[in-house]
């Protein structure tokens, strides 16, 4: 099966906006991602070192009577993102194993950079209380001042660092 084309970005944006609007109308809050990934990491760490996680000044917020670190709206939402992403890729004939990188990049180099960039994002998302989904997109639509500051900073950070990793992509 040949691959279906991607949507026109403006149309994709409007549909994404309607999904976001739907979340606001039904739940009263918007979308998110990094929070669920953090919770998953914390749950994993808890299997190895439960005491250290529960007494950690930051992670202790996820533990307490009647609380479970994975029993959270965001975790279910991101589970949905995974399912929806798989559905989208499968139905478009795009679901295949691969590594996306520029023509000059080595596989090992690309994967190392993927982890390093991921570490920076994981740390940054906790510091900023959200990522591109929970802050930029959701907070942006809710006209949160901090979210707009965050969004502008994300683009600035990306443009500043892009020339340094040109070999990875171009």
């Amino acid at each position: 099966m040949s691959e279906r084309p991607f949507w026109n970005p403006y149309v994709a944006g409007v549909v994404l906006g309607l999904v976001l609007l739907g979340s606001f109308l039904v739940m009263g809050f918007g979308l998110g991602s990094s929070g669920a990934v953090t919770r998953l990491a914390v749950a994993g760490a808890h299997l190895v070192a439960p005491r250290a996680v529960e007494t950690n000044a930051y992670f202790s917020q996820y533990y307490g009577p009647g609380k479970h670190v994975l029993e959270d709206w965001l975790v279910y939402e991101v589970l949905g993102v995974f399912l929806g992403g798989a559905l989208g890729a499968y139905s478009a004939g795009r679901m295949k194993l691969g590594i996306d990188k520029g023509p000059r990049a080595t596989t090992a180099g690309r994967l190392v950079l993927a982890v390093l960039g991921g570490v920076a994002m994981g740390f940054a998302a906790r510091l900023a209380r959200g990522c591109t989904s929970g802050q930029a997109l959701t907070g942006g639509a809710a006209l949160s001042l901090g979210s707009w500051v965050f969004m502008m900073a994300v683009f600035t950070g990306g443009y500043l660092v892009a020339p340094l990793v040109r070999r990875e992509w171009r």
Partner: protein
Amino acid sequence: MTFPLYPHGLFGTYTGLLVGTLVGVAFGFVLERAGFGRARNLAAQFYLTDLRVLKVMFSAIVTALVGMTVLAGVGVLDISLITVPETFLWPQLVGGLLLGAGFIVSGYCPGTGVVAIASGNIDGVFAIGGVMLGSLAFGVGYGPLENFYKSGAMGAVRIDALLGVPAAVVAAAVVAMAVGAFLGGEKLEAIFAPRQGELVPASPAGVKMRVFSGFAVVAALALLALALPARHTVAASKAARPIAAADLGRELVASPDAWWVVDLRPESEAGKGRLPGAMVVSEKEIASAAGLAPTRSLVVYSQGDLEAPPAAVLKFAGEVFLLKGGYDAWKADVLTAPKPPENPTAAQISDFRTRAALNAYFTGAATVAAPTLTAPRPMAAPVTAQKKGGGC
């Protein structure tokens, strides 16, 4: 005022989780169709060859923003119940820069990384693995970071409120800005894509026309709705509801993040002991309590019984409660171990059990929550605060 449904109590937590999964499926599907499961489509934004990220993101923000503004304008949506992520200026500025850097280095942001994994991209697995490590690193390094993490706290501040103009005006300005950015962005693509030996991304004029004029029409409707007669949603004679200490205790155990707790006593008194997560608010600063996010209920107390909370507190947009008997009642009913009743009835036994459990919970917690002895600033979130949703 029908929307949003969940804060109006129209369905419970578990239905909410199901809704969350469905919203996620739609979110993930659209991200995939937008091309965001592939790192090169995202990285192209930062080499100006394909500004897909800008186009999708700002079209989405504009759609949700003007949609909410119109629905609020015609009175279908209670905008005060929409969660606004709280502003902490400095960590959000620095976190944004670092996240942007991580984005171009890893090729994904956290949400698109999940979609990449779902569509079979191994680099997505490494990126999300990195995000997990980075999250854990933040927790490990939290101690010395805590002050910075809480710096620049301004509460849940909306740009329209900050500027003192109606949301519809800001929404219209955002639409104009976005369309300007789109047109400018396409000019950049036309310059930078050929320079790097790539095709300029196709952008059919018909689709553009329809999307942009759609934005303009909805933004205009939002502005027109300003002319509608104002609806008074907050009853003028709003009163605080009393709540007993034991009942409040149960609520705080069950859902600590559904409450703002405000201690009206002077800091000298409150420093000796107070409710977990309570904010100490002086008379001068009392107005700031009214500005807290109305997605939670607000409970206020003094040393003894209060007839009514200060008038400023009643301006709070959500529900206001008054702790019956004040801190004295909390001490007597919750912090003091209950005496087992003699010849008890079944109801008395059950009551005793609840009180004993509450006593154990809060007296145990009190020794852990030692930091509350120094008075925090009124706007700082309580220790137990942990926002739902949006947290990304």
